[in-house]
């Protein structure tokens, strides 16, 4: 039996040595797992919140049968979705059909990797940073990854071999391309103000006042474009139930269907976090005695409620109006805002 203990000892020593030499790697991996799991567990809670709030907004009760306040409803829904039969029609492109929902979820989670939610703190002599990664062009990373998310919808539309799905895919790509412009250009005025592409630097630049006070127009434009980018009502054209029978995910069932919604809700959280970081001062509490992370979470929660509020208030806009709105109203306003911002910055704050 001695040789077994010997082997175990050697392995144990090797593991300890490896961990000691690669502490940043270990900390990074743990953070990655925590962030990914946390962001996925937010989804059921968000679905519950949306259904309850929508119920209140529309003067009905919403889910209230499973558990107290219907809190068990998301659990019941998940179990139902997991046990549903996964139907793939015979004319679909199998590989792409499976790939599409995965692309949606993976890009949604990956975009959250660079979102910071608090100042770094020290534990056991290690500085733990409250972000997955501080990429020096963090905001561009988020835009790049959320741009890749379009392919999920496009591929779903293409591979389903269904007219309505194809229309949904077409619409989603056209809409995303149009509104990405507004999103990027309105963020550009914040980049001008901070002189950095890093999200952490942007929050630190807002220590005295949040940028919404000096850039209200950019905030409005960014938020509108954000709603369009996450395919939420009133810009949910790609999944218009009445015209497209749900659009790009018509042919999906069970968990694959649910994955599209997971992606949508995670994108919603990411977009709220971005708006918080860019315009509402991130984790800065402005004198209120709360932890930075609480301040951040409260702002994100408020924005999520606004998302839901907008969904239950506005009717879906017509497709041609969506395009006109994006290209003829939002884009010129963005350019104007950018021009004024850069002029003021060059003349008064060189």
């Amino acid at each position, binding site marked *: 039996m001695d040789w077994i203990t010997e082997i175990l000892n050697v392995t144990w020593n090797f593991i300890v040595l490896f961990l000691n030499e690669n502490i940043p790697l270990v900390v990074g991996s743990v953070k990655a797992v925590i962030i990914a799991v946390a962001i996925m567990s937010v989804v059921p809670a968000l679905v519950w919140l949306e259904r309850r709030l929508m119920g209140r907004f529309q003067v009905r009760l919403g889910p209230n049968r499973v558990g107290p306040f219907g809190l068990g409803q998301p659990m019941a829904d998940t179990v139902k979705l997991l046990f549903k039969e996964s139907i793939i029609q015979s004319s679909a*492109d199998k590989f*792409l059909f499976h790939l599409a929902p995965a692309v949606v979820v993976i890009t949604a989670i990956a975009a959250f990797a660079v979102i910071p939610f608090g100042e770094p703190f020290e534990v056991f002599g290690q500085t733990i940073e409250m972000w997955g990664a501080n*990429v*020096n*062009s963090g905001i*561009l*990373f988020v*835009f*790049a*990854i959320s*741009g*890749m998310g*379009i*392919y999920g919808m*496009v*591929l779903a*539309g*293409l*591979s389903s071999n269904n007219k309505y799905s*194809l229309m949904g*895919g*077409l619409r989603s*790509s*056209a809409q*995303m*391309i149009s509104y990405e412009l507004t999103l990027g250009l309105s963020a550009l005025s914040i980049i001008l103000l901070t002189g950095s*592409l890093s999200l952490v630097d942007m929050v630190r630049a807002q220590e005295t006042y949040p940028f919404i006070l000096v850039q209200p127009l950019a905030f409005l434009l960014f938020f509108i474009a954000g709603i369009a980018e996450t395919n939420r009502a009133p810009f949910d054209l790609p999944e218009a139930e009445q015209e497209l029978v749900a659009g790009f995910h018509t042919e999906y069932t069970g968990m694959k269907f649910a994955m599209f919604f997971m992606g949508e809700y995670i994108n919603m959280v990411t977009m709220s976090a971005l708006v918080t970081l860019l315009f509402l001062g991130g984790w800065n509490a402005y004198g209120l005695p709360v932890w930075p992370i609480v301040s951040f979470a409260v702002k994100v929660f408020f924005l999520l409620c606004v998302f839901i509020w907008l969904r239950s208030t506005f009717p879906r806009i017509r497709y041609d109006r969506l395009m006109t709105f994006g290209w003829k109203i939002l884009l010129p306003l963005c350019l104007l805002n950018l021009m004024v911002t850069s002029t003021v910055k060059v003349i008064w704050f060189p």
Partner: protein
Amino acid sequence: MELLIFYPLAGFCVVLALGVVLNNSPVGSAISLIGMMLGLAGIFVLQQAHFLAILQIIIYAGAIMVLFMFVIMLLNLKEGDDTGWIARERNLLLSVLTGLLAVGILYKISGILFTAEMDTPAILPDSFGTVATIGETLFTDFVLPFEVASILLLAAMVGAVVLAKTKLD
């Protein structure tokens, strides 16, 4: 350690690049191209060019390929019939020109391979590959090519609008 990441990435890129050429369905080709561009972005990150990597994803893998997919969806190309890569139409002039290009590139690469000092790693300044450095280079050393390229793009854009407009009327 760096090679441990480089070789799988490079292999991934080569396989997908072959996939672009050899795939029978246009959608498959487009997806291989997207994958290859993502792999290239990974290699850029490995070379400390983070900004370039992100631009590669935003512009090529994001914007341009979405337009490709858009066109594929609009034309609704189907695989099958004789659009396979073996049956594709051959053009002698184009084949010769492509062959010449390949020979030229190989010649250049072999020149680099035989003269380069492989063992000495390049020493990079801290600011290498950041937005500030790239912006400064673009607007000082390369300002003329940069402006010419932007005028070219503008001309192409105006041309596209004019062409589309005459079709609409």
